[in-house]
């Protein structure tokens, strides 16, 4: 234990680990290690020149110091400090003192006196600043000690008048970190202790050095962060700083104003040069808006970002940010947005622009036009047009946040967001599309806006298109023309980029189900039906036709009159699609067709859902069979597994549950099959070959259990127990098979012991769940545990065998939400006949694009595997940045895989697939006693492996020999 702790201290030299403090304090006396401090002392004494001493100190600083010897080292350093004349050495010593006082387990109050003492005699400004930094480290280490804090604040105040900006900076930092406002704490008569830190810091807002001004504002912000309430009086001071010459001051001042506006949103402030008064938050909002057109882009980014979080601002101020008050030749002019809106509402859409169309209208009163101090006026218009994309992104984000809290603002900012879809930087475009999606429940797109949105569907970037599909999924469209337009554009997109198929279908699914009434009048046109004539039956494999059908069927779900418009082949196609693309086509109540769903009321809850019932019933049927003859059991299991798998394909929402249960039943089936084998009846140990089936079954069960455990998200502890139990059974089976097939007893000893350890481990891990496992394999096993421990391997095997056969089939409780992790590799498509040629020995980059569903923490678990024809396999860990997160539970992997090989004579295929790495450590519940027992944790817990979870894609490559 002690050794362990010491190791920890070594590792975390610079980190603050509070919990170990007392433990170490008790050991201080025992562990006397003179080496470190003594060596330092000798070194420093040896040093002849300041440069030498500095070298020694630098070397010393590279190695960590354990908490026990910190004090000794500090004494030596201090002693040397007094003697030293060279400021650079003193500086280094001062910095070391600060570093040392941060050591975990060391209480620095003992060196504080010395530090303050040397501070008073120090002349060099740099050393002074460093010493103050050291004091800051000491002060933050002792947050409880009020007296020390007071003293430090006092020291800081004393040095505030120093001529060096560095010293003043540090003093302000110290005040910000340690100063307190509550005067009640110090009841002593000491007047010096009662200081209004805020006022002191505030005085330095007008320091001559911009760095000090910045530090003062930062210190003020620090006070706020520490939970002290700032006075409203600093608002005016901060406002003055907004016109400072230096950008870092302005940037900090913007933050300060924001903080104050959040503290006192409702206070009233006067407007200078008029008698009016407005709310503080509105005033601050106007001021920060003004900073969006600052000269420095750093300030602009800062201002734009903060605007987003000012939700209390009044709506008319908010709406001003989008209005630039256009004029031309002193006449009021309408924006293009307003004109578009007017055109739309007047009913003449898509009129070409005429010369003078934007001719200004009424005269503007010259006196009333305010060009500068119009506060919030047009802040976002400026921000979105900014030169730097950082500012634009910040502005888009702010728009998003404000629009989420104010529906009317959302409506107004729509035009601007739509405009951003044309930004020159893809990141900005993407961001604005995402923003639009987030606010989409607040808005309805006008037709002309939709038009602009849809134009982006032709973008060559897949990211953009998919984001747009995602957006269309949750957009409200106002007219049937809009729906038609969207459909036409999506089909155009489909022909241009066939790979978008799935995404487009999904998008149309939502579009249809959201706007059934708008789709209804379009149906005849879309299906090209004719009242009198039969039209040609469309090609069922045409993705565009499927897309149309997906839209219609989803709309028909809530619109019962729609099926009347279908022609015969539509019904046939419905049946086909319902079967083949069940996740996109919902169940419909069709006239003249008997559907299971027709009996159920339309508003079915998932648990009353017939398919769910079916699932439950079939599972129950399986669990109820106890004493059927083996043949019958097997058949029933096989049947049920088939049903479940099919159900999973049909009902996407049940896919996870169905697959999960099917896998479990599969395991059980394998187990039963293995136990049915004839070999058990033969007494003598048999040849290896004959037990193939059993050992293969054991192996497969193991694999399946890992899949069950790690490939599904939403697996709860209840299930984990069952899975582990199944695995235990597989291991028992393995043991038995091995015992049967190997001669000699020696290897069995080890295996038996290992198995028993695992049983033990199982018991310890799942002790709470054991009562649920009545009558199971492990239940019986644990009953016999004492006997097993003492018996010989052969005996153990025999017992296990009987127990395996007798054990009952455990009921697998179904989790609420379960999803199977899956991955599809979109790129490379694996269809190319052109080999990727490259010179052998060099690398070729292969772009991999895949979508991942329901993968938790893909950054650490998903790997790419490349299998070369010679059997060589390579596992590549994609960078964390390669993963995108387009929606909940979905991830997208866009990465490059480097291939390389020696020269081949002809092109050959390599296989690329995705693996899901797992580590059994992560899933097992952490119980206190596991940590104590080191023995077993090494045995079981560190099983790592990978599960392939995507279809492999073949890539044709050809490494050519290098030309000489």
């Amino acid at each position, binding site marked *: 234990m002690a050794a362990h702790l010491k190791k920890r201290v070594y590792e975390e030299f610079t980190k603050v680990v509070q919990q170990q403090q007392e433990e170490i304090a008790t050991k201080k006396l025992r562990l006397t290690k003179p080496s470190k401090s003594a060596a330092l002392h000798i070194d420093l004494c040896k040093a002849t020149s300041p440069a030498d001493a500095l070298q020694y100190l630098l070397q010393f600083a590279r190695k960590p110091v354990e908490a026990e010897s910190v004090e000794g080292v500090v004494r030596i350093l201090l002693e040397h400090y007094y003697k030293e004349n060279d400021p650079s050495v003193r500086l280094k010593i001062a910095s070391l003192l600060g570093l040392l006082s941060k050591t975990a387990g060391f209480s620095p109050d003992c060196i504080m006196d010395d530090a303050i003492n040397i501070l008073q005699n120090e002349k060099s400004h740099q050393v002074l600043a460093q010493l103050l930094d050291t004091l800051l480290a000491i002060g933050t280490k002792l947050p409880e000690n009020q007296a020390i804090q007071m003293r430090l604040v006092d020291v800081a105040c004393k040095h505030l*008048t120093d*001529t060096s900006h560095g010293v003043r900076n540090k003093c302000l930092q110290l005040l910000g970190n340690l100063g307190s406002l509550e005067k009640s704490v110090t009841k002593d008569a000491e007047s010096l202790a009662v200081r209004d830190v805020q006022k002191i810091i505030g005085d330095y807002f*007008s320091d*001559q050095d911009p760095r000090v001004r910045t530090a003062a504002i930062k210190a003020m912000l620090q006070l706020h962060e520490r939970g002290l309430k700032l006075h409203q009086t600093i608002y005016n001071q901060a406002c003055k700083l907004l016109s400072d*010459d230096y950008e870092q001051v302005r940037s900090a001042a913007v933050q300060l104003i924001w903080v104050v506006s959040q503290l006192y949103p409702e206070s009233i402030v006067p407007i200078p040069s008029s008698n009016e008064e407005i709310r503080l938050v509105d005033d601050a909002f106007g001021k920060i808006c003004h900073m969006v*057109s600052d*000269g420095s882009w750093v300030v602009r980014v800062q201002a734009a970002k903060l605007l987003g979080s000012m939700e209390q601002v009044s709506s008319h101020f908010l709406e001003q940010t989008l209005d*630039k*008050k*256009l*004029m*031309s*030749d*002193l006449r009021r*002019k309408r*924006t*293009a*947005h307003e004109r578009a809106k007017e055109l739309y509402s007047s009913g003449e859409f898509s009129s*070409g*622009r*005429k*010369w003078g169309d934007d001719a200004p209208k009424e005269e503007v009163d*010259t006196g009333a*036009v*305010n*060009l*500068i*101090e119009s506060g919030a006026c*047009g802040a976002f*218009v400026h921000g*979105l*047009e*900014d*030169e*730097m*994309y950082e500012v634009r992104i910040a502005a888009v984000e702010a728009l998003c946040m404000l629009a989420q809290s104010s529906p009317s603002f959302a409506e107004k900012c729509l035009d*601007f967001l739509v*405009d*951003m879809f*044309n*930004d*020159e*930087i893809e990141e900005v475009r993407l961001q604005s599309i995402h923003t639009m999606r987030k606010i989409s429940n607040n808005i309805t797109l006008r037709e002309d806006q939709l038009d*602009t949105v849809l*134009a982006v569907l*032709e*973008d*060559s*970037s897949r990211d953009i298109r998919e984001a747009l599909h995602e957006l269309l999924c949750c957009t409200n469209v106002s007219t049937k023309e809009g729906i038609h337009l969207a459909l036409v554009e999506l089909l155009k997109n489909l022909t*241009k980029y066939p790979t978008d198929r799935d995404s487009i279908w999904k998008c149309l699914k939502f579009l249809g189900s959201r706007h059934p009434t708008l789709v209804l009048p379009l149906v005849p046109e879309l299906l090209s039906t004719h009242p009198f004539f039969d039209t040609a039956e469309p090609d069922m494999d045409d993705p565009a036709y499927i897309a149309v059908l997906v839209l219609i069927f989803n709309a028909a779900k809530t619109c019962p009159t729609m099926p009347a418009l279908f022609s015969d082949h539509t019904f046939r196609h419905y049946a086909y699609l319902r079967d083949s693309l069940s996740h996109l086509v919902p169940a419909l109540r069709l006239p003249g067709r008997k559907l299971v769903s027709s009996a159920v009321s339309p508003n079915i809850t998932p648990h009353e859902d017939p398919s769910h019932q079916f699932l439950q019933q079939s599972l129950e049927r399986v669990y109820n069979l106890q004493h059927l003859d083996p043949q019958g059991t097997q058949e029933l299991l096989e049947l049920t597994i088939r049903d479940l798998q099919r159900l999973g394909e049909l009902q996407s929402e049940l896919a996870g549950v169905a697959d999960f249960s099917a896998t479990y039943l599969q395991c059980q089936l394998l187990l039963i099959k293995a136990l049915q084998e004839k070999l058990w009846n033969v007494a003598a140990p048999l040849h290896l070959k004959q037990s193939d089936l059993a050992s293969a079954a054991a192996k497969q069960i193991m694999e399946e259990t890992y899949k069950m455990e790690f490939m599904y998200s939403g697996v709860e502890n209840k299930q984990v127990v069952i899975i582990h139990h199944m695995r235990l059974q597989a291991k028992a089976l393995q043991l038995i098979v091995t015992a049967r097939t190997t001669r000699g007893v020696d290897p069995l000893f080890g295996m038996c012991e290992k198995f028993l350890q695992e049983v033990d481990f199982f018991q310890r891990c799942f002790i709470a769940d054991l009562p649920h496992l009545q009558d199971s394999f492990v239940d019986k096993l644990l009953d016999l545990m004492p006997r097993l421990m003492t018996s010989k391997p052969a005996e153990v095997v025999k017992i296990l065998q009987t127990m395996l056969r007798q054990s009952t089939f455990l009921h697998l409780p179904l989790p609420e939400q379960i999803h199977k992790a899956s991955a599809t590799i979109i790129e490379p498509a694996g269809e190319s006949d052109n080999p990727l040629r490259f010179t052998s020995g060099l690398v070729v980059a292969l772009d991999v694009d895949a979508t991942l569903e329901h993968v938790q923490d893909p950054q650490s678990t998903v790997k790419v595997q490349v299998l070369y024809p010679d059997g060589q396999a390579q596992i590549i860990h994609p960078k964390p940045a390669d993963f995108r997160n387009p929606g909940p539970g979905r991830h997208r992997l866009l990465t490059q895989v480097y291939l390389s090989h020696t020269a081949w004579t002809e092109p050959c295929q390599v296989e690329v697939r995705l693996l899901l790495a797992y580590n059994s450590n992560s899933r097992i519940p952490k119980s206190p006693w596991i940590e104590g027992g080191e023995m077993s944790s090494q045995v079981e817990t560190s099983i790592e492996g990978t599960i392939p979870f995507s279809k492999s894609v073949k890539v044709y490559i050809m490494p050519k020999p290098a030309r000489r």
Partner: protein
Amino acid sequence: MPDIRVTPLGAGQDVGRSCILVSIAGKNVMLDCGMHMGFNDDRRFPDFSYITRNGRLTDFLDCVIISHFHLDHCGALPYFSEMVGYDGPIYMTHPTQAICPILLEDYRKIAVDKKGEANFFTSQMIKDCMKKVVAVRLHQTVQVDDELEIKAYYAGHVLGAAMFQIKVGSESVVYTGDYNMTPDRHLGAAWIDKCRPNLLITESTYATTIRDSKRCRERDFLKKVHETVERGGKVLIPVFALGRAQELCILLETFWERMNLKAPIYFSTGLTEKANHYYKLFITWTNQKIRKTFVQRNMFEFKHIKAFDRAFADNPGPMVVFATPGMLHAGQSLQIFRKWAGNEKNMVIMPGYCVQGTVGHKILSGQRKLEMEGRQVLEVKMQVEYMSFSAHADAKGIMQLVGQAEPESVLLVHGEAKKMEFLKQKIEQEFRVNCYMPANGETVTLPTSPSIPVGISLGLLKREMAQGLLPDTRKPRLLHGTLIVKDSSFRLVSSEQALKELGLAEHQLRFTCRVQLHDSRKEQETATRVYSHLKSILKDHCVQHLPDGSVTVESILVQAAAHSEDPGTKVLLVSWTYQDEELGSYLTALLKKGLPQAPS
């Protein structure tokens, strides 16, 4: 009283022929040297005889600064330097230096070869003139001579456009040239630091306009082009060779790239190719996006935009063509227009303003039947669109720049008088600074109060610092020292050092003053009374009563003596050194008021 004088020779309450004379602290600078597009006679160039009737220009001007390569800012340069005669330095940025001669040559060709003008500058003159050019970099401070320095800031109007700060000592003038405060597809926004010049000379083309967001216009433009191309129509975009053309090219190029479009885009050849070459070179002058991505691909290396050939106009299928000139009055753009005008699928987009009388203006005003030469009537069936892409700051932008630079006064040029009036009023009202808008030939005189820098010796400063607290900007402080003016440099040193430096002996200067007091008591008693009186009033000072009967306050000596004639009157002798003048005179005044009545 020193002053700054500004005289616009051109661009005063007018657009075109920018040429502004500035004399600042004895230095004369000419800002821009442009020609006027509206005139073909002598009025097209500024009247340089205003500067000097019969002397050489070089003797009168210290330097010439050209803000950017547009002809209304540099068109008269060869005439000015070669024909009128100027040999001094001409400052401009590198891109301007590169592109300027191309445009001048083009201008010369049109004037001489097409219009057949005589007495125009020659190619050789352009070359000679360009030899006098000194190129400057952004934010580089160039010393024209010992006192005059200039510095360029980014203006964003066209490639290489710059604003210039002209500075002599502490007096400075900023000339903006043309600038743009909203970034576009290829250039960034103008930027200036808080340089607080005495005078800011700014353009005011859009003094009364607040412009809509650029994005709507861009989107509209792209949509129009895209729709036409998808219909299979042809798009003609008449442009001037430089500036907006590049912006539109970038816009279309990126759009084609993004949307994966295949229709060809052509650019009519000629001077554009040369100019495009320079756009590729001067990447540092472009906007963030182009600067950041040029390592992968230079945005000006157009993938989709190819050179145009006359024969292409008859090719079937959709295409987009940029052709010069921009107003459809002659040349290639007119030729193409005539070919395409009959088809309603086609479209012409006018990206800029058209002068009255040109074909461009006619079709924009809705004329559908045009009479061409030879009594031909051309029926225009193609769609006509107007898109305004302008790279001048609007009223808000101008105010923003004024706010950034914080000048002491503003002078408006390059705009119409009526519009300037409005902006002038706004500037005066919102910044509370003077604003001028002189007409051509009118001189504005601006009194300045230049601050004179004085060097102070460190010893003196430190001594002062030791005495008091930190310097406070809000309160003036009194300081004793000696000002040495030597070789036009000013230094403030302590008096000891000054004496030493000048080799002078120190003279003590004492003031003595007699104050008569009516006091019948003895001298010693009077002295004691004076002592106690002073002691009670001057609490901050050290007041001592010496054994010889005199009283000292710091170093001021006060002695009491009986009046020789009137024993009832005592004479107080107050004596102080020159350094204690303040305290001494205060003390005298105090004593003159008399002593308080002793509590006798």
